[in-house]
């Protein structure tokens, strides 16, 4: 179990072509793809934690690396293209457990869990009530997606270097988030603090000075 994120922290979710589009129309379901492979009542998804992606360039680098990794195993006609990211507050994610009309959600939390050597990776884990019938889980996922998408800000558009020649670039199809554009809410001093902390921790982690739990 990783370190819980703070309530006011920001997280980001990358949008990748072609998975989030259907006939050039952005779809929130595939964007917030919720997995429940092992236990049907445990729903998971991946996010990028701002603490270890303190600048937008870090967020986008994460997205481009993810894309590159996916393309190692994909056919050229199924090429993954990172298009940008949307922002959510950790409080919005944890708030899923208390939303009226979504009583099936027992707990919702997001924790820091390094994955694929990505220091900024955070895992969303939603536990559904044990009494939720398996047939009902897909409908609950739709409700979760609708709630999270409603709180999303963005998009923060990006073109990875390898995709600069794409014309048109699919990022142009990303819609405005329902909660409006992303607004940087950290002061300049706080941003500098984030950067210094990140480089200190990142360097110490890379040289093996410590490991994350």
């Amino acid at each position, binding site marked *: 179990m990783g370190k819980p994120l703070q309530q006011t922290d920001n997280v980001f979710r990358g949008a990748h072509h072609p998975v989030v589009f*259907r006939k050039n129309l952005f779809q929130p379901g595939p964007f917030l793809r919720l997995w429940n492979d092992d236990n049907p009542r445990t729903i998971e998804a991946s996010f990028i934690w701002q603490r270890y992606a303190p600048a937008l360039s870090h967020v986008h680098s994460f997205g481009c690396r993810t894309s590159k990794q996916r393309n190692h195993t994909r056919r050229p006609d199924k090429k993954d293209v990172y298009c940008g990211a949307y922002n959510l507050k950790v409080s919005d994610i944890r708030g899923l457990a208390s939303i009226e009309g979504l009583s099936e959600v027992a707990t919702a939390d997001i924790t820091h869990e390094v994955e694929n050597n990505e220091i900024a990776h955070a895992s969303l884990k939603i536990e559904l009530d044990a009494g939720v019938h398996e047939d009902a889980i*897909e409908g609950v996922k739709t409700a979760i997606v609708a709630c999270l998408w409603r709180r999303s800000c963005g998009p923060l558009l990006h073109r990875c270097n390898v995709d600069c020649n794409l014309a048109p670039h699919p990022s142009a199809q990303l819609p405005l988030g329902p909660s409006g554009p992303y607004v940087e809410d950290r002061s300049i001093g706080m941003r500098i603090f984030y950067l210094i902390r990140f480089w200190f921790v990142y360097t110490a982690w890379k040289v093996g000075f410590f490991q994350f739990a």
Partner: protein
Amino acid sequence: MATSTTSKARTNTISTVAFTADTSISGSDTAATTITGGAPYGSVTTTLTGSTTSYGALSSSLNNFGAFSASFIPGTYTIGSVGHVAGTINVSVANSSINVSNGVVYLTNGAALPEISDPSDLVVASYNQLTNSLIELHGLEDGDDWKINTPVYAASIQVAAVLMEYDIPRPAVFTHGPNSVVFNWSQDQNNLYLTISKSRLSVLVSSNEGIEMRTDISDTADTDRFFSALRSVPLLGPPEK
């Protein structure tokens, strides 16, 4: 190119457990036509008239020319005549691949779409595109992010048929993975989601304020009420382009 003129006479019932439909397919075209897919696990009662040159085994009772009842399972069947739906529409059938679901015959060959002379046929044409999308999702490779499994495909294609029956504008489509298809209508900040899994329909209406309504459709009475209400809901926007 051979052409047949056909008419429809059917009623639909739908439930969360089994999807059934009655239909009448008639025609006199003798060109070989392939019916692919269909309504897996659904039950179709069909009356077939006209000259049939050959046909595959929908069921053993199909060999009795005329009225038959068949349990329609996925597969490719060949018959000599074919019909279509929604009044009288000329349908070109030569070398066309068509899909039968919930008693509705869909052309999947874009070159053979019916001519549209009646405004109500616009919904039919629009739903042909939706049906094609669902066929495409079902036909994707295993592991594809948008791939849906066969029971979900069967359920979704029949729900689409019922939506068309009620003249509901075509929805946008997305998936959560192989176990469900979500039909989505949106207008302004309002969204209506219909989540279709193999044995359940879940309805969600959301707005900027949050979740406005959630319900599961559990029996035929609920289904009729839902689709009747859906028809009059003002939030239904235009279908995806």
